[in-house]
């Protein structure tokens, strides 16, 4: 069936757009518009300079303002123009921003001081990133492989400030689950692979070893690479078949323990709080153009144990993405006015609390005290930025 849809999609896209022709004189029209834009920018910059100068003169005699309060949202940093945030991560004093530059090959991983927003170090990644994870000791695991512009495959283990690294050339992993300072599990269609890297800055070669007895299901048509994490000390992977269908969760080494994947519900975004998984599900019978779905909690056997307060939440039934930090669960939702919510998910489930975030959440990283959020800019020309919010007390 999938092959049939594949070929039908190719045909229908060709036919449906066959009549489309660009306007004559397009290149010249672009040039004219660009000249108009530059004239407008020159005027705007002049106005800004005048206003800024006036403001400076008015405020120069005042004392410098106190440091920004940490009990309210704060725009922590703005990325350079044309950078699009792909993922955020936080560990120790650092906020990591994985971002690609519009139209440029590769991506960049930057470490910022998460208290001040100051850039500590940035490394260029020579190809498309496939996995980013921060492990024990704050060491940063990164994998990449070729995109449309070519480039190499590889896996790096970087020091927390990104200044030192060791590398395993030619092999990219996706996803990676660090288990010690220099060891991580990677998920392949044959089961888990243990990857051992030299410490950052140290010479030497990486080693990889397939772990027997860690099957994630039938090898044929199984495509890992979406998510993996620890649940009750065991590794759980999100896998699909070779066509991208059948997204389900499976305990490595116990391939009969699965959840999701039927036509009624498939696993979307996933996060682990240690002894539970929180999974955003999507029903394939839903004929509405809505990419959100209900949030469910799974126990160590991948059985649903969703609390009633979560199941009955009108906001959480429209979950788009889910993250966690400690016992706090974060959900980006499609519910109007509730772009980002959180709740405590310890022994007691806390009330669902909405943060004052507007726009669609593009990436998030959290500590127990602070959450760092990037939203998709409203205008294509706007720069991406990261805003920090204190975690509401009700979500602890």
């Amino acid at each position, binding site marked *: 069936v*999938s092959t*049939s*849809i*594949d070929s*039908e*999609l*190719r*045909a*229908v896209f*060709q*036919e*449906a*757009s066959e009549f*489309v022709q*660009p*306007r004559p004189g*397009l*290149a010249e*029209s*672009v*040039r004219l*518009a*660009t000249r108009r*834009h530059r004239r407008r920018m020159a005027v705007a910059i002049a106005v800004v300079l005048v206003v800024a100068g006036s403001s400076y003169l008015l405020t120069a005699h005042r004392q410098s303002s106190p440091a920004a309060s940490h009990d309210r949202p704060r725009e922590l940093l703005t990325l350079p123009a044309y950078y*699009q945030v*792909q*993922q955020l991560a936080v560990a120790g004093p650092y906020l990591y921003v994985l971002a690609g530059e*519009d*139209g440029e*090959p590769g991506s960049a991983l930057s470490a910022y001081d998460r208290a001040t927003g100051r850039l500590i170090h940035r490394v260029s990644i020579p190809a*498309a990133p*496939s996995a980013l994870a921060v492990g024990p000791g704050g060491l940063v695991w990164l994998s990449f*492989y*070729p*995109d*449309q512009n070519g480039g190499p495959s590889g896996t790096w283990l970087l020091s927390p400030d990104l200044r030192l690294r060791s590398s395993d050339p030619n092999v990219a992993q*996706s*996803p990676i689950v660090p288990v010690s300072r220099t060891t991580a599990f990677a998920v392949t269609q044959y089961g888990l692979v243990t990857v051992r890297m030299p410490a950052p800055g140290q010479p030497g070669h990486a080693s990889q070893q397939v772990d027997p007895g860690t099957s994630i299901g039938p090898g044929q048509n199984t*495509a890992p*690479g*979406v*998510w993996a994490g620890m649940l009750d000390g065991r590794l759980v992977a999100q896998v*699909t078949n070779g*066509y*991208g269908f059948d*997204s389900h969760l499976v305990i490595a080494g116990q391939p009969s323990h699965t959840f999701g994947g039927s*036509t009624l519900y498939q696993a*979307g975004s996933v996060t682990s709080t240690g002894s539970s998984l929180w999974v955003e599900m*999507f029903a*394939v*019978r*839903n*004929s*509405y*153009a*809505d*990419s959100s779905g209900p949030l469910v909690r799974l126990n160590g056997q991948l059985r649903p144990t969703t609390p009633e307060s979560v199941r009955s939440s009108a906001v959480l039934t429209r979950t788009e993405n889910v993250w966690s930090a400690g016992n706090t669960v974060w959900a980006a939702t499609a519910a109007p006015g509730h772009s980002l919510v959180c709740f405590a998910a310890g022994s007691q489930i806390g009330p669902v609390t909405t943060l004052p975030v507007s726009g669609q959440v593009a990436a998030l990283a959290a500590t127990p005290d602070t959450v760092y959020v990037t939203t*998709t800019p*409203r205008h*294509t020309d706007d720069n991406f930025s990261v805003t920090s919010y204190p975690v509401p007390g009700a979500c602890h």
Partner: protein
Amino acid sequence: MRAADDADFSAFVAASARRLLRGAYLITGDLAEAEDLLQTALERAYRRWPSIRQKDVPEAYVRKIIVTAAIDAGRRRKFSSAPLNEEQLPGLPDAAVERLPGRTALLSCVRELPPGQRAVLVLRYFDDLTETETARVLGCSVGTVKSQHARAMARLRALLPRQPDGSMT
């Protein structure tokens, strides 16, 4: 901008504009909107043309701007978009029109998808990009492309009307 760059930009537009516009139209379902997106993306590319040209990836650059803007625009009018129908497919050759009933159904189903999922399908099946290339255009991880693709295909399977013999149109 140097005359050579200008000439090079014109050559790029002549060679790539139609393909880019077709992709934009397939994602938005609205030719006027697709034309606006292409114009805006080309303006941005023109402003940085010497640098983009040096990197030799101008089409990827422009496609990325178009797709990002198309998805943003689609999200803003998520609940007001209408399915594409035959009247929005002018100029199809006769042979294509004969196949339209089944394919119109498929196209209508594609239009029911969220803009992000629709973009994944267009990039994969019209632009023939790999999952990695699609992730680069969308500025997301390969895992996100896989899950978006899975959702899109699953929803298409659910939406497509079935023939009496159980096959899909």
